[in-house]
């Protein structure tokens, strides 16, 4: 099956700093999403981005499908950005509906 690798595994920032999270995947995908899991365990859908670039406020994401990676940018980080960020991919076909998750990046933003 598809392998998904996220880096870095942990990231500590001061409030106001910028950061880039990376997601590499091992095969062609028809779905790629970035999620934020808050301390209560709730999984928030940040971006549905199988290719191209999207922006939503201080967050933006870019997926280069031909090179099998995606980047999540967080600008002017806030303490509420803390949590775990997951990249998840889907391949379609017999794997339709199955999202394969990376191991996540644990982000801690200090005031």
């Amino acid at each position, binding site marked *: 099956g598809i392998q998904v690798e996220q880096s870095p595994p942990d990231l500590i920032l001061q409030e106001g700093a910028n950061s880039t999270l990376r997601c590499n995947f091992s095969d062609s995908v028809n*779905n790629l*999403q970035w*999620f934020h899991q808050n301390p*209560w*365990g*709730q*999984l928030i*859908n940040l971006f*549905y981005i199988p290719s191209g670039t999207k922006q939503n406020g201080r967050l933006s994401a870019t997926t280069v499908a031909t090179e099998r990676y995606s980047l999540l940018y967080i600008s002017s980080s806030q303490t509420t950005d803390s949590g775990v960020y*997951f990249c*998840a991919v*889907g391949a379609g076909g017999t794997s339709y*509906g*199955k*999202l394969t*998750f*990376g*191991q*996540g990046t644990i982000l801690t933003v200090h005031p």
Partner: protein
Amino acid sequence: SAVISQKPSRDICQRGTSLTIQCQVDSQVTMMFWYRQQPGQSLTLIATANQGSEATYESGFVIDKFPISRPNLTFSTLTVSNMSPEDSSIYLCSVEDSFYGYTFGSGTRLTVV
């Protein structure tokens, strides 16, 4: 995007008992998906639930341990049976959304003592 109501949000259960988790979606969906997140780990798909047919389980998960019901196009339940402490996890349901990819319920945090 689709809105999923999942309950209970958390529970503490005795080993050997069973817990049923419910997910209600605000729109009709063909498939619903159940995931498990063990402590400190990522999410793993347990099974896919289609209305009117038996659920399809991923490798390592069996129907006797995780029976699933899908009585209609907006509702599904997952039961965690004969629980042991190793079943302590967050369980989440998910549905596909045309524009937003996959959306998840708020999760059920299960502790087995």
